């Protein structure tokens, strides 16, 4: 301690440097921490072994088109038949039909919903009951089947947990929800599912599902826009070898029914990559992480360099210590301890400055709300990183000096 005070002029600059570095480094560490946490949190659904069977309808100009008068069933009815055929295909575990509900689909819809006294706009889509089995959405107990069963009941609606938490007054199950399309009868909330995220770089948004009215599909109400609906299948893992080409080879004749034809079989992983690419968010995150790492590397080199030069400069002093009986090992550790003490002096005000930065709203609080845990973890990581830098910066030159004979080192004094 006395040492530090004696050389306070020199140490003042170092103290300022450590203060600035601690704040700057914390800022970068905080960003990387938030990004990492967001990426690692669960998506809410499981797209492994799932595929989208892309169907389309022939237009009047296409060869093979069956005009309306000669059609036996509506295109929608044909689609439901095709769904049954796909369900019977060996290896298929579950098939679902959805209108904009598939994970990683482009576009989204939101609508205002009223439950009890709370009215807010949430994202929604319409899906058939088996949707939950295909994508393994689970309720708060971990069961997908419970959601499917709840959905099969008349007039059901399923909401996400974060939506439910926004409604005060106990459990939301059994309550009635009303929207602009049906203000009298409403829908009964019969299931609560774990929140889902649109992509790995964002947080979950409140969501609810309506049942897709299959009778309306059969009646032909969706004819003309059936290609926008998603037919998704989950394939058993054992049967998931080269599924797209096998399906295309064996099922094309079965699926080309009436005016419907098979366009493509796409794995959800491909659709996920296309979606993430279209939002550009992954590239943005990668860029920021790259810039953050560049700055980190610079800071590393800067601090290591500073302490290296300091240690070199103090060769004479170390020679003196060796002559007076210090062991060689102690030389390095004295300097390291001195550095850490100086760091502690700088760290407390650095934490205050950091808190100010939080107060001024300069850090990202959208993805991960600011809390004590986040602050302490990031400050802790920052502290350890700077300590590591000090150790590296002191260790090598101290070892060099300790290898010299004391007489030689004294010469530098």
């Amino acid at each position, binding site marked *: 301690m006395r040492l530090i005070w004696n050389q306070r002029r020199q140490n003042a600059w170092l103290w300022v440097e450590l203060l600035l570095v601690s704040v700057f480094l914390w800022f970068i560490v905080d960003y990387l921490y938030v990004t990492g946490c967001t990426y690692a949190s669960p998506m809410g659904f499981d797209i492994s072994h799932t595929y989208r069977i892309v169907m389309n309808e022939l237009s009047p100009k296409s060869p093979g088109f069956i005009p309306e008068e000669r059609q036996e069933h509506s295109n929608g009815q044909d689609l439901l038949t095709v769904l049954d055929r796909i369900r019977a295909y060996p290896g298929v575990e579950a098939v679902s039909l959805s209108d904009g509900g598939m994970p990683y689909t482009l576009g989204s819809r939101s609508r205002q919903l009223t439950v009890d006294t709370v009215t807010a706009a949430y994202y929604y889509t319409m899906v058939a009951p088996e949707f939950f089995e295909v994508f393994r959405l689970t309720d708060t107990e971990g069961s997908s089947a419970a959601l499917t069963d709840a959905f099969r009941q008349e007039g059901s609606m399923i909401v996400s947990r974060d939506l439910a938490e926004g409604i005060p007054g106990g459990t939301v199950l059994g309550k009635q929800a009303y929207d602009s399309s049906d203000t009298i009868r409403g829908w009964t909330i019969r299931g609560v599912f774990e929140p889902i995220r649109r992509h790995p770089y964002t947080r979950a948004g409140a969501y609810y599902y309506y049942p897709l009215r299959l009778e309306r599909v059969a009646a032909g109400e969706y004819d003309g826009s059936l290609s926008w609906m998603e037919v998704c299948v989950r394939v058993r893992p054992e049967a998931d070898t080269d599924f797209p080409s096998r399906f295309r080879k064996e099922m094309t004749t079965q699926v080309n029914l009436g005016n419907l034809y098979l366009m493509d079989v796409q794995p959800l992983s491909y659709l996920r990559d296309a979606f993430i690419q*279209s939002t*550009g968010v992954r*590239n943005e995150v990668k*860029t920021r992480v790259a810039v953050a790492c560049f700055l980190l590397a610079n800071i590393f080199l800067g601090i290591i360099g500073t302490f290296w030069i300091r240690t070199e400069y103090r060769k004479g002093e170390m020679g003196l210590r060796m002559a007076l009986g210090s062991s060689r090992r102690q030389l390095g550790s004295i300097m390291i301890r001195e550095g850490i003490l100086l760091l502690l002096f700088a760290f407390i005000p650095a934490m205050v400055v950091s808190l100010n930065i939080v107060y001024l709203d300069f850090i990202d609080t959208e993805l991960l709300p600011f809390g004590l845990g986040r602050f302490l973890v990031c400050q802790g990581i920052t502290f350890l990183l700077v300590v590591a830098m000090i150790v590296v910066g002191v260790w090598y030159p101290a070892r060099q000096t300790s290898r010299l004979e004391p007489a030689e080192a004294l010469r530098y004094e």
Partner: protein
Amino acid sequence: MYRQYLKQAVAMLRESPFFSLVTVLGTASAICLIMVMVIIFELQNKGVAPDTDRDRTLYVKQMTVSRKGDGEVLCYTSVSGPVAKRCYATLKVPEVVSVQQSCTQALVTTTDQTRRMKCDLLRTDAAFWKLFSFQFVAGKPFAQSDVESSLPRAVIGRRLASRMFGEVDEGVVGQTVLIARKPYIVSGVVEDISPLASHAYSQVWIPYAQSDMDQLINEESLDGLFGSFHVIIKAHSPADFEAIKNELSQQVKLFNSGLTSCMIDFSGQPDTQMESRLRIYSDVNPDVSVMLWQYALVLTILLLVPAVNLSGLTTSRMQRRIGELGVRKAFGATRGALMYQVLVENFAVTLLGGAVGLLFSYAAVFLLKDWLLGASALSSVGGDLTVSIGMLIRPSIFLLALFFCLLLNILSGIVPAWQMTSQNIVDSLNEK
């Protein structure tokens, strides 16, 4: 004098090779990162052939439909056909006005379905070919009369042509392909273009459906008021932008007066290139100056942080030269002259690091192009994201690299130069 400085700089580098290597690499990495950002900014904003002349082009991509009276928004949409026809096609001030629908993907096959290729497809009009100067290998573009009479003509890219027909020559013109199961006659073949020419890019171009243009407006269901068109307006010069916006607002007023309960609004569009890239929501006007300030801030930090490290390195490297500077001072050199010497010698090193950095940045852009240049507009890309040397060798990039080297040099050299020249003559001579 400069030759002397250069010789001294080289000698200094040779003296402590480790330090010199670290300095050069440090400078190179900083310049590399900065130039990567600059190159990406250039490519994304200035565009590549045939999508050049962006500085005299305006873009419209979104429209708001709201209720007259209380102004409640009924719909956020792209431009609808009837609106494009009545408000944009009638503009007199611009050089060219073209309308297109977003690039989608479609399956293109030969008539016997033996050869297939999934392609990027763009639906547009005849003015599109006047907007961008494509290189036609064979045939010619489709004409406005083809568009209006809904004749199925298509212009295809070279790669698609060779996949469908084998050769790429006049023989391809007049052949039929099936696009999404509908037959089209090939009217021309063009050289493939890079997705970086974002407004022009596609692999096959067909006329939009005239029925989309001629929709009847139904204010109840909003038919005819929502659509998926984008409008591109090329002016004779940027000075005409005001006049174009004025003419457009008059057309919009005229259009709105013909509606009873609805009205359309463009919220400040047509946008310039940078504004258009920033516009996400129909009714929030993009702020280009904020974006430019943010860029400037990031570049400043990327310059300052390495500069701090480099100045530390420079100081310790220059310690050995204090004696020499003391001698010069004794002979009457002013402080300014001494600082100038230090900065110039430092600049030689910075320039070396900068050249290395620029080469690294070119390599980075080539190797990492999917990450760096993959933007939202290029989502469903069937073609390769090609970056050619010609795109990267531009005078503007060299000048900017030089500018940043100079800036970095001053930032990293000023403190050491000041420190070293502020020493007492006697002290400096003593150190010798």
